[in-house]
């Protein structure tokens, strides 16, 4: 493993598989236990440095670190010296001086974790940077797919929605490719990046053509403000062309699953009856997020499992 986890490309196939296997071991070790806590990172300090509101991701990382017995500090940009204009570098050096072993960072600027990694000696984990990547989301998604379908090699994954602005999509494309899955991105052409042709994916504008062949359908959140920038004409038209409703779910194969990184816009990209169906892994994804993040922190800070 590299010292930092900044993007999916930091993980080769062996590393990525190691993270997933470690998460599975952690799940087994904790299954049925009353005290869901391992002593592995006792005395180590993990800082959650969040420049964007993201309660679910922050809580997931916080829980992961605490279950490994690490000390956790939540450093929110709001109400701190950051809102008084302290630079990212000064914040990084301050946290470093206080002895943090790992910094989990969420930031609205693509590449902010990469800059941070230049300035600190500890490990940096990217918890989502701008429209770049969110690698632990991709790991928990891969973990969930493997758990449900038993494999990743050759699994056909459709990633549907606002690929242009999605860090979840970028991380998933990279990691799933590394792990041998076959990815198709599906979106209106306005929500695909100009350079998508260089990605290791198939590209489709037609959700209905892709669904029958998909083992996994991963729906992305579509933000309403995209509508005002003419990425698509209306929420209704988007939903009609790219939303996953019950009719579309009916054409999926028997084993196919439906994923969403959350938070969902029910009725926009995904219908409530789809989100709540047995195909949906949305709640499992949340639980798996903690296990996978435990595995990442453990491998970055604690070394390889004995």
């Amino acid at each position: 493993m590299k010292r930092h986890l900044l993007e999916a490309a930091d993980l080769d196939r062996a590393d990525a598989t190691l993270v997933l296997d470690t998460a599975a071991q952690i799940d087994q070790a904790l299954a049925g236990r009353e005290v869901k806590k391992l002593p592995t990172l006792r005395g180590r300090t993990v800082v959650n440095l969040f420049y964007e509101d993201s309660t679910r991701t922050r809580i997931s990382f916080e829980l992961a670190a605490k279950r490994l017995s690490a000390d956790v500090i939540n450093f929110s940009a709001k109400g701190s010296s950051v809102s008084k204009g302290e630079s990212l570098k000064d914040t990084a050096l301050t946290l470093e001086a206080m002895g943090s072993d790992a910094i989990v960072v969420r930031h609205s600027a693509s590449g902010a974790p990469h800059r941070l990694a230049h300035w600190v000696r500890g490990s940096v984990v990217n918890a989502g940077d701008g429209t770049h990547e969110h690698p632990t989301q991709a790991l928990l998604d891969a973990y969930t797919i493997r758990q449900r379908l038993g494999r990743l090699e050759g699994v056909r994954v459709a990633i549907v929605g606002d690929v242009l602005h999605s860090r979840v999509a970028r991380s998933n494309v990279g990691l799933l490719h590394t792990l041998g899955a076959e990815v198709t991105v599906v979106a209106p052409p306005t929500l695909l990046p100009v350079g998508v042709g260089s990605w290791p994916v198939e590209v489709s504008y037609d959700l209905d053509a892709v669904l029958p062949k998909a083992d996994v359908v991963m729906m992305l959140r579509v933000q309403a403000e995209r509508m005002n920038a003419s990425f698509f004409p209306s929420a209704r038209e988007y939903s009609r062309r790219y939303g996953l409703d019950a009719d579309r779910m009916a054409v999926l194969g028997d084993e196919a699953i439906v994923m969403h990184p959350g938070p969902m816009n029910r009725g926009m990209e995904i219908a409530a009856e789809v989100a709540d169906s047995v195909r949906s892994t949305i709640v499992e994804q949340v639980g798996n997020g903690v296990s996978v993040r435990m595995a990442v922190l453990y491998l970055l800070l604690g070394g390889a499992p004995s």
Partner: protein
Amino acid sequence: MTTYLIKGARPLGGDAADILVKDGRIASIGDSLTVPSAEMVDAAGLIALPGLVDLHTHLREPGREDAETVETGSRAAALGGFTAVHAMANTDPVADTAGVVEQVWRLGEQAGLVDVVPVGAVTVGLKGERLAELGAMADSAARVRVFSDDGHCVADPALMRRALEYVKAFDGVVAQHAEEPRLTVGAQMHEGDRSARLGLTGWPAAAEEAIIARDVLLAGHVGARLHVCHVSTAGSVELLRWAKSRGVQVTAEVTPHHLLLTDACAEGYDPVFKVNPPLRTDEDVAALRAGLADGTIDAVATDHAPHAVEDKESEWAQARPGMLGLEQALSVVVETMVETGLLDWPGVADRMSVRPAAIGRLSGHGRPIAPGEPANLLLLDPSSRAVVDPAALASRSRNSPYAGRELPGRVVATFLRGVPTVLDGKAVR
């Protein structure tokens, strides 16, 4: 005034000769000149070129004296072999009145290291809404001839047309920052494979090309002079070639960094490589070099853009765009154009001195190296190679994209009207 005898230099890379500099002018050129009263400058093996002229420099004064001053920028220019620089108008306050351009001009005179030629803003406050008092700036002591809203595009086509027409009255030129603003909202880097992967909002080549296409049509229609700043794409070179073939009075510049660097530099998100227009692709670099070689692009201009540390040591999106250029411009041209065989030494003199001086209507610069001409000269050691150390630069800022890179060519001496501003590779003062 000291008389200098430059021994054994090769004017424009030709045969070695001695150059006698006296009373601000080149007094004579010949073999084995001996002038006992003259101070000798050993120039064996050195190339003599006319002092370089930059059409595009940000000196930051008034307003951001922590990033650069007219004096520190002038010193950086002299060390780069320049004898004249055009100071861009995006200062604080903006150089959109006779008062501000005269202030900048006077600061340049006081520094006395290069001729500082102020550029006037096209529109009041660079806002793109109404014309600044262009005539007043032209008639001022600063004698402004180049007008630019650089940093901003004069996006309104009707306003651009009027500006092009209006400056004809005093033989001015509008230097356009070609960037369709509606296509570059939030743009961070060249739009292509890399921006898609890095998750940085793309700056499409078409946003530059659309404005160039529009403006060459306008310039042709009203019979005015147009200059295009920092051309960065292969498509722009094609459009310029087409416009010139149709007889449009258009000139263009390319920066050293666009001749050397590509969007690959954005990997790692180090904002020292963030610049506007952005670094482009290998294909663009090749087209820009070819365009400069065949004269479609008239000039190399630095777009020297000093920034304080805190404006660059940050997240990519928060950082200000721009990079230093004055002190390495000639070295980059040697590396990209001379050592590749695309340009000979007379070609370098043409693109870095003669043509930019003509575009800016500077009569005392870009002159031949001949008796009677103003002694604006530089001496270059083309065989020297050095690794760029930002800490050693004369600029007040450190945002050099060439840090750690080995580049050829060292400016050994620069003369401004017969007075050395650089000797032995060091600023005289």
